[in-house]
């Protein structure tokens, strides 16, 4: 999924740059969070990539705005959980039908990872709501 372009025309202040980038990447993650509810492989993948972009932006800007650090840490854990689910989706696609027991185990682990991702996203979302990220600049 391609990232949306961010209109930075006329921006000459770092604070304004941080605000515009973070708001855009945050809005993308919110839009794609429906994939987390659907729990399908493609939806989870798109949401994972959106969270990764948001996390990279937060980690880059936390030197300028320390309040971003806590949200970035939460997103790192969320990404681990989504990554584990994604890796299992990839492996499940190539395993032969004769490996039923391994497949069953992978499916269980995948669902546990998605459950963990849902809880971590809810937590991150609450933390974003309470941070300066959603406040008008």
């Amino acid at each position, binding site marked *: 999924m391609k990232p949306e372009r961010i209109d930075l025309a006329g921006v000459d202040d770092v604070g304004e740059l941080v605000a515009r980038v973070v708001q855009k990447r945050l809005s993308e993650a919110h839009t794609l969070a429906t994939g987390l509810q659907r729990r399908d492989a493609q939806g989870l993948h798109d949401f994972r990539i959106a969270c990764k*972009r948001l996390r990279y932006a937060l980690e*880059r800007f936390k030197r*300028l705005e320390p309040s971003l650090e806590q949200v970035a840490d939460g997103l790192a854990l969320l990404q681990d959980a989504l990554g584990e689910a994604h890796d299992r989706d*990839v492996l499940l696609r*190539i395993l032969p039908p004769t*490996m039923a*027991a*391994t497949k069953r185990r992978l499916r269980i682990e995948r669902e546990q990872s998605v459950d963990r991702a849902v809880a971590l996203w809810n937590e991150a979302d609450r933390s974003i709501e309470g941070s300066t990220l959603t406040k008008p600049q």
Partner: protein
Amino acid sequence: MKWLAKTIARERRALERARRRFVCKPNEKRLHDVRTTGRRFLSLLQDVATLTHCERLRRRVKRGAAATDSARDATIIVRLLESSLDPGEAEIARPLLEQLREQEKLATQGARRKLRRMRFVS
């Protein structure tokens, strides 16, 4: 914007360092490093695309990051299959694991070949 120019230069140098380390001695950790450094830098260039004129660099970084995709996928899949394999299915999995390990080796060599030709700083 001075901060942005400095950040781009810093991340660019970090990617070049990671590329050189991987090309010099490819292993799982160095593959991970060059891949994540590239992805981070690409994300920065995409975030500020309308403010900078780094289109050619962005495309090169994107190609560099994509060059590691197959190697990373193969590595992750091999490790996951080794750790999640049901003991009763070890015999069935053996040819698949061998095939995946061969893929991992070839993909890592392929990534090294592609990255050897790329430069991220002049």
